């Protein structure tokens, strides 16, 4: 079958910066691919290249078998794009926004109206449909933006950091909306800085750093390499850290990471809950006073460390707000 996206050695420079530096990525039909990486890794540039907004300098990039540089119109007919900034018109209603995009997709008035109505319903925006977008919350705008990328009934949906900057509740709502799309059979390429987001939504994860793909696989495969979860112990007295590290660190194949400043030690484990119990017992046996023991998902920097053996570049730490390159 023709891959949805086939990128080979895609390179793009902006001045002296190499935003993409020989990126390879293949997305097959039926997959939801998450491009995971820190700020400045080239995620957004890659999405913009797939969306025909940026021309790669070198390499080849095909969407549904069509070359983005030679046949950009054919590519645009297959894709729907929702960006980091909610590109909806605040002075128009939700419905008007969707109808506008549908009309630009070449639909006549009637099917534009019908499609807008069904997308509004699908995203739970029916009640707000006839209000000006100006009055929408950030989460609603983001949903509408997602809706705008849907009214054209695209084969491939491109979502650039769909939940960056949203509050936790809107984030989960948007995840639900994206998941229901996936169930309907839309292929998705999304970028994110958050491992949990990639884990929730994607069937495949491609980790990028400095314009290259550094690792890829299903979430399960990557977790096997990283360790599925992390046991973190927060001790009361800094002096106890070493003792806890040796007690808990021996639990699994992972190496204990000690953070003196925050009085925490963490170790990645495969079978989370079993190990958590064991960790608590180990801490108890060591007779150490603790503030907290927790089981959590590995953070992006831990994934990087495990997969690449490298610390994440300090200058490229994930930031909470918008603005990735």
């Amino acid at each position, binding site marked *: 079958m023709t891959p949805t996206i086939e990128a080979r050695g895609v390179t793009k420079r902006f001045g002296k910066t190499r935003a993409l530096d020989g990126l390879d990525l293949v997305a097959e039909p039926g997959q939801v691919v998450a491009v995971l990486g820190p700020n400045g890794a080239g995620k957004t540039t890659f999405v*913009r290249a797939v*969306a*025909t*907004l*940026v*021309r790669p300098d070198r390499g080849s990039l095909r969407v549904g078998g069509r070359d983005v540089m030679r046949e950009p*119109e054919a590519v*645009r*007919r297959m*894709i*729907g*794009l929702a*960006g*980091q*900034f*909610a*590109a909806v*018109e605040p*002075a*128009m209603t939700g419905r*008007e926004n969707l109808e*506008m*995009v549908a*009309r*630009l*997709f*070449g*639909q006549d008035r009637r*099917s534009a109206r*019908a*499609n807008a109505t*069904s*997308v509004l319903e*699908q995203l739970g925006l029916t009640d707000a449909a006839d209000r*000006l977008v100006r009055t929408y919350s950030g989460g609603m705008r983001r949903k509408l933006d997602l809706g*705008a990328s*849907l009214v*054209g*009934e*695209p084969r491939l949906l*491109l979502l650039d950091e769909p939940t960056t900057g949203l509050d936790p509740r809107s984030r989960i709502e948007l995840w639900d909306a994206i998941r229901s799309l996936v169930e*309907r059979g839309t292929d998705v390429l999304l970028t994110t800085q958050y491992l949990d987001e990639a884990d929730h939504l994607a069937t495949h994860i491609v980790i990028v750093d400095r314009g290259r793909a550094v690792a890829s696989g299903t979430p399960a495969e990557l977790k096997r390499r990283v360790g599925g979860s992390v046991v973190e112990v927060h001790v009361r007295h800094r002096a106890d850290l070493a003792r806890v590290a040796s007690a808990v660190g021996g639990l699994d194949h992972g190496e204990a990471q000690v953070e003196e400043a925050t009085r925490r030690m963490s170790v990645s484990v495969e079978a989370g809950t079993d190990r958590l119990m064991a960790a608590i017992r180990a801490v108890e046996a060591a007779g150490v006073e603790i503030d907290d023991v927790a089981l959590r998902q590995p953070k992006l920097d831990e994934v990087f460390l495990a997969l690449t053996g490298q610390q994440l570049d300090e200058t490229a730490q994930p930031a909470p707000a918008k603005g990735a390159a």
Partner: protein
Amino acid sequence: MATISLGAQRTTDLWTSTLVVARRAVLRFLRTPQLIVLGTIQGAMFLLIFRYVFGGAIGAGGLRYVDFLVPGFVTTGVLFTGMGAATAIAEDLEQGFVDRLRSLPIPRSSVLTGRALADTAMHTWSLAITVAIGFAVGFRLHGSVPDALAAFGLLVVFAFAFEWLFVTLGLIAGTAQAAQGMALLVFPLTFVSSAYVPVDTMPGWLQGFAAHQPLSYMVDAVRSLTQGPAAQTVLGHGAGFYVLRSLLWAAVIVAVFAPLAVARYRRG
């Protein structure tokens, strides 16, 4: 989705996409009343100041100053209104709206043609308001009505021409703030012209520029069409002379800036 369709199989035609893009720009304008009200008040204030504060000190040859001023004022108004286009297009770039449009299967130029169409419509509206204020402060026609209508038509043509200059500025600027700064370039163009004072009252070195720059021809075209024979005595040439030259200038502006805007836009 409820409806099952194969989606658009080809690029949406230029006309439809231009209209859809233009509709959005007009709605944005109409639903932001601050823009309309402030713009109108600002225009009226300028006109009142020139008419009643400076006017008494400015001699306009054989014409009443208000009859001399209003054609100049209305014509330069095209530039002041046009500054908004630069800001608007820069905003669309900044806020990702242009990205959305560029990722759609529409002719890329429709983003610009839609903007130009919408702005020309908005210009027509604001021209009508300015003309009405002009009449209210004492401006009168001394030529035929068809000539006056032709003058109004010319103004719309000028607005369309300058639109491309502002679209280019907006695309180059990239941010709304920078666009606003760049658009301030209209001040020398409007003031060093025949719009507010007769050019022969300026120092010689300035006259060369003031007399031959596009805006002066445009102002004098409108002046001679609305003021009849009196204008010819003051200006030195008949209406045809100015109309022809102003239209040539308009054509030159479009020929230079429309391709520049399109090229800049395609580069992304």
